[in-house]
């Protein structure tokens, strides 16, 4: 047991105690009924030892309420006497400031004498005058702020002001553990409140030296390490998926380079040629014109010749035809006169014919030309007259007229004479019957009107009618009859002659014809003779004509061909002229609309290109073609430029942007094309980068694992520390960190992958594709990221959980997540105590050990051996154990009773009972 350390705790006017003195240098049994204020007593230490209000814990009471409780007035004191190695006895104190229930700290060297705080009148000194009061008692006290007090108590490098010495109560191995220490100390003061969850946090804080508390953001680390790789991979993918465009770009790029070279080469040639064109054009034009004229002239000449020859031929043909016809005629005549071989024959025939004809002519001449038909008609008429006259004659004796004459008057007779036809009037008696009276009467009736005849049912006008009959005498009639009969005879004669005349006429004509025919025959015969004579000559002529015609045909045929040739020539000439014109037009247009006006063409020679290896000169007669080509090329170049631009945009949009920083677009394309050609190598490079990235990213994981392993090592040491103790009926008590297997596996997977990569075996192992695609790697990574997301970062604390291994004597050790469920109350308490104290012990600088105190409520729950065990363990760790219970314990050194009177609690020194073990050997 150390001598240095807490000696006494004194409360004056605080926490319901008028005065309380508690020994802290050995184990204490604090006895009082429940809810008397045992806990309040020990909790008062927090003001002096925890100091930081945030870390104080008064159970169900808030700190502010506690403040009021502990410092009701400005003469409320919490005092702690500590025996320090360097400074000797030291008093640390806390005094209320009054109505505000605030308080302030002070400290002085010296022993704690309660009377020092009393005034002469027996009342306690109040805060305002405290220091002076103490000074009057020979205590040089100093005030401290909370921070200063903390520094002092925990021995920070910043020394407390004043030269009162070193008031360090707790010297920690690591100053930064002060917070943890305070927390644990708080818990330890109230042991039963120590929670398993907190143990893990405390352990980590104590043992986890190297890194800060913040966990690693694995996702961030991964992203950072892989950002390059991912970016490269994206570019690679962009290139891969746009392979088609790449190929296209390359092709266009190449084409553009050659085209540029070509244009650069041709441009000056074109320029020069254009200059020369005009001259060329004009001279060529004249040439062609001249040639054309000559041809036209030749053509004309030929046309004329042809006409002439045609005419001649025609004539010759006609002549030949004529001869032909003569020949035919001769043949005809030959046939006709086949039987006549002498002219005299024909002459005779003529004479005969003439004679006959002349006879007939004479015959006919004397005859009156009168048609027989006419005469016949006349005869008929005369015959009729004869008949009439004969009738008249016959009826002379008594015809109707005579009868009527006898019966009727002259007027009536006249009327009838006008009415009846002549023939009626001359009817013989056999032809009529007359009743004179009746007739007379009827006529009177009918002829009532002069000049009119009124028949029943018919009226006639007679005025215009002529007389029909005149009664003549027989002699008259006889005379006329004989005349007529004579006439008749004459007419018969004439008729006969006339009929005969016709035949004579006909004969005359016939004979005339014969005569003429005979004459003709003679002529024809003469003709034949002539023809015969000229036959040979004719033959010759015919031949001549025919040959001439043939010649002319040849000539004419030739003309045709020649004309055609000339035409063709002419056409050719014209075509050439048109061509020339066309060329000229094209060139003029081309000259005016040169497609190389764009600025890009002016600095074309400066752009990267392939030099053109081609002809040296530009033949001027093909200038139009070349100019056209040139313009096409210029346009193509412009199109290429825009196509290339378009492709670039596409490729950019598709994600290939790594070359955009190039100096100029050409450079960018060149690099892109190169890139596209070397995609497999790029893939390899990315793979390598990825593997490096994996290695990099696992660096932080390694760190994490390393920290975990470090922690585990520390825990092993810690367990040794706590395992040395005998804890009531526990044979085994360990706090084991158990891996969170899934996380640790994930980390191991990634690390081992990285190691494989490092060792260089990598490339064969990843035979199933890129390291980035490895399935378990992916799972591991995903797991770590998700855990990181869920917990706001990956830290060592996530990699394990604490298991409290508790093994009762004679039983198998069991693992518990939570200590409270692990064992009986006593055992649990033990375990907690040990854990807490061990933690505190761990943090303290072993070279500077100052005994402190810790508190255990409901100590009666423990049996005697347990209590002793606890006391010993606490002592080993440098703590005096204070038990609180309604009844006193026998295992402690001090037994202190809380008494109550006057409404206040009291713990008087006088009431301390020191116990000493009966058995001498059982020294604690």
């Amino acid at each position, binding site marked *: 047991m150390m001598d240095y350390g807490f000696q006494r705790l004194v409360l004056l006017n605080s926490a319901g105690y008028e005065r309380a003195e508690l020994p802290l240098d050995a184990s204490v049994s604090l006895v009082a009924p429940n809810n008397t204020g045992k806990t309040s007593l020990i909790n008062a230490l927090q003001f002096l030892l925890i100091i930081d209000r945030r870390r104080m814990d008064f159970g169900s009471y808030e700190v502010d309420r506690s403040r009021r409780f502990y410092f009701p007035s400005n003469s409320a004191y919490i005092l702690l006497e500590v025996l320090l190695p360097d400074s000797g006895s030291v008093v640390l104190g806390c005094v209320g400031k009054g109505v505000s229930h605030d308080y302030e700290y002070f400290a002085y060297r010296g022993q704690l004498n309660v009377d020092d705080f009393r005034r002469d009148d027996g009342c306690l000194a109040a805060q305002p005058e405290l220091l002076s009061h103490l000074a009057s008692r020979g205590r040089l006290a100093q005030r401290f702020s909370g921070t200063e007090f903390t520094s002092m108590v925990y021995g920070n490098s910043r020394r407390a002001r004043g030269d009162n010495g070193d008031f360090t109560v707790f010297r920690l191995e690591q100053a930064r553990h002060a917070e943890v220490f305070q927390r644990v100390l708080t818990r330890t003061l109230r042991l039963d409140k120590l929670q398993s969850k907190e143990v893990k946090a405390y352990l980590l804080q104590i043992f986890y030296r190297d890194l800060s508390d913040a966990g690693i953001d694995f996702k961030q680390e991964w992203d950072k390490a892989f950002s390059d790789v991912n970016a490269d991979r994206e570019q690679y993918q962009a290139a891969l998926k746009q392979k088609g465009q790449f190929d296209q770009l390359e092709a266009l790029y190449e084409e553009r380079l050659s085209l540029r070279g070509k244009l650069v080469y041709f441009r000056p040639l074109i320029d020069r040629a254009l200059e020369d064109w005009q001259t060329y054009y004009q001279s060529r034009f004249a040439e062609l014109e001249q040639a054309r004229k000559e041809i036209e002239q030749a053509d004309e000449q030929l046309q004329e010749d042809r006409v002439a020859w045609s005419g001649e031929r025609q004539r010759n043909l006609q002549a030949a035809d004529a001869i032909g016809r003569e020949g035919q005629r001769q043949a005809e005549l030959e046939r006709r006169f086949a039987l006549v071989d002498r002219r005299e024959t024909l002459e005779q025939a003529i004479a005969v014919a003439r004679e006959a004809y002349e006879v007939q002519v004479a015959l006919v001449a004397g005859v009156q030309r009168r048609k027989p038909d006419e005469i016949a008609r006349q005869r008929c008429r005369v015959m009729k007259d004869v008949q009439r006259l004969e009738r008249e004659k016959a009826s002379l004796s008594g015809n109707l007229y005579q009868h009527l004459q006898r019966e009727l008057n002259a007027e009536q007779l006249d009327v009838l004479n006008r009415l009846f036809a002549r023939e009626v009037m001359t009817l013989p008696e056999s032809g009529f019957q007359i009743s004179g009276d009746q007739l007379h009467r009827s006529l009177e009736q009918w002829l009532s009107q002069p000049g009119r005849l009124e028949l029943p049912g018919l009226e006639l006008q007679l005025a215009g009618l002529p007389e029909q009959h005149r009664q003549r005498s027989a002699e008259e009639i006889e005379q006329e009859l004989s005349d007529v009969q004579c006439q008749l005879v004459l007419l018969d004669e004439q008729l006969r002659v006339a009929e005969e005349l016709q035949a004579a006429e006909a004969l005359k004509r016939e004979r005339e014809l014969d005569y003429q025919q005979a004459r003709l025959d003679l002529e024809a015969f003469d003709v034949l003779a002539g023809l015969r004579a000229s036959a040979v000559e004719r033959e010759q002529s015919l031949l001549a004509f025919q040959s001439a015609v043939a010649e002319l045909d040849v000539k004419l045929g030739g003309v045709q061909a020649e004309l055609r040739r000339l035409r063709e020539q002419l056409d050719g000439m014209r075509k050439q002229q048109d061509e020339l014109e066309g060329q000229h037009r094209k060139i003029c247009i081309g000259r005016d609309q040169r497609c190389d006006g764009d600025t890009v063409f002016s600095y074309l020679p400066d752009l990267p290109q392939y030099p053109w290896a081609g002809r040296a000169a530009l033949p001027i007669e093909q200038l139009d073609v070349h100019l056209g080509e040139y313009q096409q090329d210029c346009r193509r170049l412009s199109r290429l430029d825009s196509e290339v631009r378009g492709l670039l945009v596409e490729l950019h949009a598709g994600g290939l942007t790594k070359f955009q920083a190039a100096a100029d677009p050409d450079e960018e394309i060149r690099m892109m094309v190169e890139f596209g050609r070397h995609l497999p190598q790029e893939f390899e490079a990315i793979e390598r980068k990825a593997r490096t990235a994996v290695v990099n990213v696992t660096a932080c994981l390694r760190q994490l694992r390393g920290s975990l392993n470090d922690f585990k090592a520390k825990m092993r040491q810690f367990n040794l520390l706590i395992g040395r103790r005998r804890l009531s009926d526990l044979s085994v008590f360990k706090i084991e960190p158990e891996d*969170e297997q899934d996380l640790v596996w994930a980390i191991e997977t990634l690390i081992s992958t990285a190691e494989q990569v490092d060792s260089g075996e990598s490339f064969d192992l990843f035979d199933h594709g890129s390291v980035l695609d490895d*399935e378990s790697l992916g799972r591991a990574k995903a797991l770590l990221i998700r*855990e990181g997301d869920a917990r706001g970062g990956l830290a060592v604390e996530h990699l394990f959980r604490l298991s409290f291994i508790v093994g009762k004597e004679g039983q198998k050790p069991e693992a518990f*997540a939570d200590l409270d469920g692990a064992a009986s109350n006593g055992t649990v308490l033990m375990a907690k105590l040990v854990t807490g104290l061990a933690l505190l012990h761990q943090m303290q600088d072993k070279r500077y050990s100052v005994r402190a105190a810790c508190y255990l409520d409901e100590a009666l729950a423990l049996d005697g051996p347990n209590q002793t065990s606890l006391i010993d363990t606490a002592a080993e760790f440098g703590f005096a154990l204070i038990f609180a219970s309604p009844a006193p314990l026998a295992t402690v050194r001090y037994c202190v009773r809380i008494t109550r009177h006057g409404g206040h609690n009291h713990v008087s020194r006088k009431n301390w009972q020191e116990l000493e073990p009966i058995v001498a050997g059982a020294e604690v």
Partner: protein
Amino acid sequence: MTQSVNLDLGLLPSLGELFDAFNAGKHLNRTAEPALWAELESEQKQYQELFGRLGFNLCVDRRGFAWFQFDNASSNVSRTTRQLALLFMLLFEMKADEGMHLHRFADWSIDRSMLAKLFERGHDLLLVEGMDEEALATLLDRACAYGFVETAAGGWRLLSAIWRYLDHFEVLANERADKLEEGIEDDESIETSAEEERA
């Protein structure tokens, strides 16, 4: 000492979600749902207290899974449990025969070909349950709903909750091993006594 519990519901944002899942018989797995698990872990006492007061027994296994322990399960659930037990038993046996470390079950990828092998292996037992290969696949899908299994890459993966089955399985295996040992010992003792007699 009476325990008064202060419940800060603000610290339990996923209370509803967790309750729904647990009440439906689903297991919560750390690896599958890390965010929910983190929350459960950080306020485990609160959750257990709250659910406990409501009559639900929340069991949390530190290997990374949690569930409500129901004593009277519906017949449907029992049947499913039974069938799953059969399936997993076959699986564990098969893997053990292959020399695989059973504790690494989370690494196994279960696909159709494996189901075929399982079916072949436990043909008779499965037929008794009226299960064919297709039914095995359906069963695994249902196991997803209970949080024993998750779908992954054309198949399934076992989740931490499978430890419940594996623990049982290992207990049974050990019992069997013990029985075997006893059997051998008996045989040995008979043999030694026989030898002694001969001697």
